[in-house]
């Protein structure tokens, strides 16, 4: 009796396998056809809110990390429209035809933004730099801001007066994990001591105050915020000259791979650029963000 039960186990297992493979072998049953509906009514704008296939129909869901730091967001409240990235996001949404009420924000930790599977947002705006390797996994919009890296230190630090790359190489530097700032340290500055890496800018600032690192490498707007708001005796030691032209480091919005919404957002960004609105937003929220350049 027991023997026959045992020999039934492999049979049951094989049956389950057969069920599993037949359920996944349906050809072509999962092809939605928004293109055909757009083609049938040629006057409908494929980028209008009515015809966009967003996460929630008729609403635009934008993701960003928490806490959302200045000068990109204000008061950790992306929905108040203040802050550089919040303003850019609402400008793009308005260009696409979404009212401010139709925009919802969702918290997306940076690591989750590029995780596989269906995204919970239409696009993510979180100071994410566009790189070719990342573009293989997700789709980026065109750049909306060209980034330069800068170094922050205490005024009492040994690199407070550094003017050249060589002076930085002798220092203990730090950066936030996952940032191109860290890559910049490893590829361009190449210090003698291994850099320290932190989860967020709060931890990095704490280490700077403790003297556990001599200098912190961050993008220029964040450097401006840290020296203005977080540190009592901080200064921006200098900024690095960025690469000019198409290889310049730029922030882009992150989309699910091959999301058609990216094309629409690119059109919106292009018209904001042409009308000068993008520059106006940058002048409003990133005014005074400047520093002397390092000599190599």
């Amino acid at each position, binding site marked *: 009796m027991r*023997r026959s039960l*045992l*020999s039934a*186990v*492999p049979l049951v*297992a*094989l049956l*389950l*396998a057969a069920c*599993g*493979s037949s359920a*996944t*072998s349906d050809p072509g049953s999962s092809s939605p056809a928004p293109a055909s509906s757009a083609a049938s009514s040629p006057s409908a704008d494929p980028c209008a809110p009515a015809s966009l296939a967003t996460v929630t129909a008729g609403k635009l869901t934008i993701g960003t990390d928490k806490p959302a730091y200045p000068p990109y967001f204000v008061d950790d409240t992306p929905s108040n429209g203040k802050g550089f990235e919040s303003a850019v996001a609402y400008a793009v949404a308005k260009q696409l035809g979404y009212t401010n009420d139709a925009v919802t924000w969702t918290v997306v930790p*940076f*690591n989750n933004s*590029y*995780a*596989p*599977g269906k995204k919970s947002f239409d696009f993510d705006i979180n100071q994410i730099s566009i*790189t070719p*390797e*990342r573009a*293989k*996994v*997700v789709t980026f919009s065109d750049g909306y801001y060209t980034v330069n890296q800068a170094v922050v230190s205490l005024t009492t630090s040994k690199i407070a007066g550094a003017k050249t790359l060589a002076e930085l190489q002798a220092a203990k530097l*730090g950066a936030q*994990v*996952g940032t191109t700032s*860290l*890559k910049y340290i490893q590829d361009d500055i190449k210090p003698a001591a*291994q*850099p*320290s*890496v*932190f*989860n967020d800018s709060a*931890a990095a600032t*704490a*280490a700077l*105050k*403790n*003297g*556990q*690192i001599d200098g912190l490498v961050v993008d220029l707007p964040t450097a401006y915020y840290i020296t203005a708001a977080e540190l009592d005796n901080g200064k921006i030691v200098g900024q690095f000259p960025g690469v000019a032209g198409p290889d310049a480091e730029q922030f882009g919005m992150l989309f699910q791979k091959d999301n058609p919404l990216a094309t629409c957002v690119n059109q919106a960004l292009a018209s904001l650029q042409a009308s000068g609105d993008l520059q106006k937003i940058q002048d409003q929220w990133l005014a005074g963000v400047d520093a002397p350049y390092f000599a190599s």
Partner: protein
Amino acid sequence: MTPVTPDVGSPYVDPVRRDLMHRKARRDVLVASASLVAFVVVAVVFVSTAPGWPTVQELFFSGESFSASIGEVLSAFWLNVRIFLIAEPAILVLALAIALVRGTSAPVMFPLRVIAAIYTDIFRGIPTILLVLLLGFGVPALNSDGITNEPLVWGTVALVLSYSAYVAEVFRAGIESVHPSQRSAARSLGLSASQTSRYVVLPQAIRRVVPPLLNDFISLQKDTALVSVIGPIEALRQAQIDSSFTFNFTPYVCAALLFIALTVPMTRFADWLNARAAKQRNAGGSA
């Protein structure tokens, strides 16, 4: 005179029964193999026919990403090993001291006993990552002369403080599990209290708790990754860095494999010790 069912290892087995046992063993092996093969086939078919499998394979098991990141993750892993090798003896010493203090009964030792009890309560209650942050950023912020600012030092100290609380309880359980007759016998032979502890109770206690101790140390091996929150780059952090540049998760799989490679020998060793301890305890048991 019916033959008594013998233990394994006994020289004489009734031939009829022996044949039956061999036939059953062969059948059992056949069924087990068939079941294993069917299980593996089902698992492989189920996973590889899932519609998202090529994406998962590319993102988690990419050969190219693996070979690109394994070198850096391996050299960062050496930091985990160093932290582990330094923390482990420190934990053993501190935990044994705490356990012994808690086991004293002299009234003069009362304040120390209370401190030891409070220590175990507090440091078992605080999550280890909080302790690493508090000590790694908090102590250097005091800015006292003579105290190092080095994050690695304070991270290791935090791990030692946290794990000593757990290991002290393990030691205490081991000491209390030694039968009181051992202590009485030792005292009646003329050994003083400290001599009894040193020559009779502790050797037995420690031998008993080596398997659960190894559990705690395997857990410590993985918790060395927590030191990364205050700055040092260890294996998991290096994997996170590589992963964030390429948006690929294979570096995490690299780091996981390295941790497993370190943990599995210790786990098998712990199993072997467990089996040996059980055999020693039950040796000559059946009367």
